[in-house]
């Protein structure tokens, strides 16, 4: 009684403290479907690291409108089925939005579920043109993969190559076929010829020796591999074991740091393309590179960079939804993404068209001394 009469402020403060303690801001649950195991998993691992880095920085700044961001991850194994299962599991676990689908195969499965459940899926690196021009819940911050083929064809022609053999990874055919098509169209228009298109059915256990023998028989000026780092390095190892020296070209998917462990010196001189350059000297990329290296002990690759950008773009959309007082769900986030003006990225700005697609330029790199050296 004495307490009540004489110390109402103290009581009120205590009550307020209790109320506040029980009212911690609800985290925003972000799901990530990523391929984290298997020979082509470097892109997924790097993507996860980039996303984690971005979320760590966002939370370090106090979250989004005071709400922390919590990341939950499912391993999709870079397959269509894996992407489908991972996306469903993440939504069931309460994710309000999905990141990932790093390969076009995994993104195909995850996209189906995202559209069914009306949840936005923002892919950092799924580049297949099969997803272009469709008004759905799928967004991406990478340009279409056929452009990778176009850029590589240009470089091949510039180097005077006229005969090309193309190797596609069948496990990610939606992507690799587009790279091959883009290459072939541009190569043909420049006077080149695609002498043969071959497939890697399943990288593990695949007979790369036989493939190397076939490529040797094709007598191409170059071999383009639209596959993973494991695919490209295995081809390089197989060709080297036969003392068959031929210029190798690889698509963006293969441009991950693990390629050196797979291929070693056999990859010397290989030409690759990428939509991001983690060694870019710009302040934004430098800052990211340093923070990433401090956290993960090694420099970031393109997938890390795209993962980082995707998470930040998503945070902007979530912030816009929360600012507008709309419901934080698929339709709300989709509307926010489409209405956002051009967004800052590590490489200039990016914006989505009405189908959630974007255009990013591709750069060329050459492997020299186990490093990716940008070709001017």
């Amino acid at each position, binding site marked *: 009684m004495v307490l009540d009469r004489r110390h109402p402020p*103290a009581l009120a403060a205590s009550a307020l403290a209790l109320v506040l303690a029980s009212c911690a801001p609800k985290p925003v649950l972000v799901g990530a479907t990523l391929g984290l195991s298997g020979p*082509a998993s470097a892109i997924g*691992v790097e993507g996860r690291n980039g996303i984690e880095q971005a979320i760590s920085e966002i939370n370090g700044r106090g979250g989004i409108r005071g709400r922390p961001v919590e990341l939950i991850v499912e391993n999709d194994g870079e397959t269509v089925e894996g992407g489908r299962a991972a996306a469903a599991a993440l939504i069931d676990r309460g994710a309000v939005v999905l990141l990932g689908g790093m390969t076009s195969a995994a993104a195909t499965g995850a996209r189906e579920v995202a559209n069914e459940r009306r949840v936005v899926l923002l892919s950092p690196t799924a580049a297949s043109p099969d997803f272009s021009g469709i008004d759905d819940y799928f967004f991406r911050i990478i340009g279409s993969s056929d452009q990778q083929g176009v850029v590589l064809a240009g470089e091949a022609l510039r180097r005077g190559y006229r005969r090309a053999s193309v190797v596609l990874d069948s496990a990610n055919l939606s992507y690799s076929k587009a790279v091959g098509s883009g290459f072939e169209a541009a190569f043909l228009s420049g006077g080149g010829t695609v002498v043969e298109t071959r497939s890697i059915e399943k990288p*593990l256990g695949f007979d790369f020796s036989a493939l190397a023998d076939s490529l040797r028989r094709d007598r191409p000026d170059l071999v383009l591999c639209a596959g993973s780092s494991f695919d490209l390095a295995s081809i390089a190892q197989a060709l080297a074991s036969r003392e068959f020296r031929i210029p190798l070209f690889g698509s963006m998917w293969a441009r991950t740091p693990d390629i050196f*462990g797979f291929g070693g010196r056999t990859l010397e001189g290989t030409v690759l393309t990428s939509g991001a350059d983690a060694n870019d000297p710009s302040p934004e990329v430098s800052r990211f590179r340093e923070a990433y290296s401090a956290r993960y002990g090694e420099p970031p690759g393109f997938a890390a960079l795209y993962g980082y950008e995707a998470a930040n773009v998503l945070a902007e959309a979530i912030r816009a939804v929360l600012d507008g007082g709309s419901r934080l769900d698929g339709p709300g986030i989709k509307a926010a993404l489409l209405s956002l003006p051009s967004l800052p990225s590590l490489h200039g700005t990016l914006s989505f068209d009405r189908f959630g697609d974007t255009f990013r330029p591709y750069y060329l790199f050459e492997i020299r001394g186990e490093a990716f050296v940008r070709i001017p």
Partner: protein
Amino acid sequence: MILSAAIPCIALGLVIGLSFRLSLVREIDASARSLNTAISQSVHRNLGITEEHLRVLAESASEGSNLEPLRTAMDLMVNAQAEMKRILALDADGRLVLGIPEEPGSVIRDFSGLRFEDRTEFDTRFSRAFLSPFDGQVSAYLARDIPETFGIARIVIELNLEELSSFLMPLRIFGDDMIAILDDTNRYIAHTVIRHVREQGYESETALAETGHARFRRDGTTWLAWSRAIPGTPWRVVYYRNEERAFAVFKTEILITLLVTVSFAVAAFLSVFKLGGSIDRAIALYSRKAEAVSRGNYGTPLPPPYREFSGLSDSIESMARSVMEREATLRKTVEVREQLLREIHHRVKNNLQIIISLLTLERSGLARSGQGDAFNRSVDRIRSMSLIHETLYEQENLDSIDVSEFASTLVDQLVSAYGRTDVRLTRAFRPVRLPMDAAIPFGIILNELVTNALKHGTRPDAVPALEVRFGVEDGWCELSVSDRGPGRKTGAPNDSGLGLSIARALSLQLEGSLALSSGADGFGTVAVVRFPAPANAAFPGDALEDPPA
């Protein structure tokens, strides 16, 4: 009082609880550090076996006359040692010279991309975790460089990380604890939750990159983790404990401490509550006694309820004594002055009596010349004044006078002085106290009006009667004197005589008025004097009233 006592109790409880928790944290920390040391040494011993195999292989490579002894040794070890997944013999450029198990279909011959840490303080070189070019699984390698023999410059053992992770499992204290081995990029080499290795996880808590301790929340669980370098390697071992479980081990002790703390706090709280009540009562009693002293009961004993109040009691008692002594002195002074005043009144009265006597003597001579009445009336006036002084010095209070008694006496004396014992007298005096400056004018007014009534208020055809009333009504003193005389007829002297003039003048002096009127039946005169009653003029007491005639 209760709050101020409860806060220390709660604070003490918190201090005890926190101290216990801190000691628990220290205990857990110490045991975890010790455990971590043991684990890191166990891992070191485990890796030491592999290192020893490397040394044996290096010797086999350099001692034989061809590669067969090395091949045999490699074959034996891969088949016998589950922790070895593959053994490679590489040339100086990293190209494969010999690999066990042999994989005829494999195209992987160039291992120049295998990267080992740069530190050269160890005989054995350790790789980071990365994907094997053979199967795309997460792998880690130990290598030993040897003098080039049969084209072999380096022996490499690919570890079976699943086996290494299994090795960690029994080293845990509790089933939900975790142990991990990190490479120098904080990537998991081994983990009791093997998924973390398969999915190429990293430990992102930077505090665990060095020997250190971290507390963090992950996947809904709060973890306590300790990191320690594995001797002779660039790798680290991290021990993770579920904080809730770590403290749950001590739940009995925590419960007991909590109970003791709560019991102590409750007991202390109740004691303080009871003590607070008794203190309140003692202080209330003390306050009442102090109040009694302040009201003038200076002799009230004021024993201090607590030692801390001794000074206050002494001060109050000393003050009371001083006041008492001063009051006694004042009272004595007042008594002396009252005595003096009484004496003065007595002497004034005596002097007035002398004047009356002198006037009376003079009147005997003047009566013959027809001026006796004037003398008589003057004498009466002086007598009325003398009577007031007499009344004053005979009563206790010298400031004011109860005029009812005085008025009664004065009326009696006037009736007697005018020899009007035939008059039917009716008096009704309520107890009214008037100060001296009002009492004397009042006495003279009464004297004049009664004298007038006695002198003129009779007629032959009626029984003489005199009615005198005085009292206080609605804040006004009202004196009325009625007779049964001929009334206020034309030429009656009572309107303009000296007596009435004096009465009227003194009424005005009392800020009142004098009104004359006839009786209800047209006979007699009613003189009414009204003036404002002084504060506290009316007081409880017996009215002096004659019985109705």
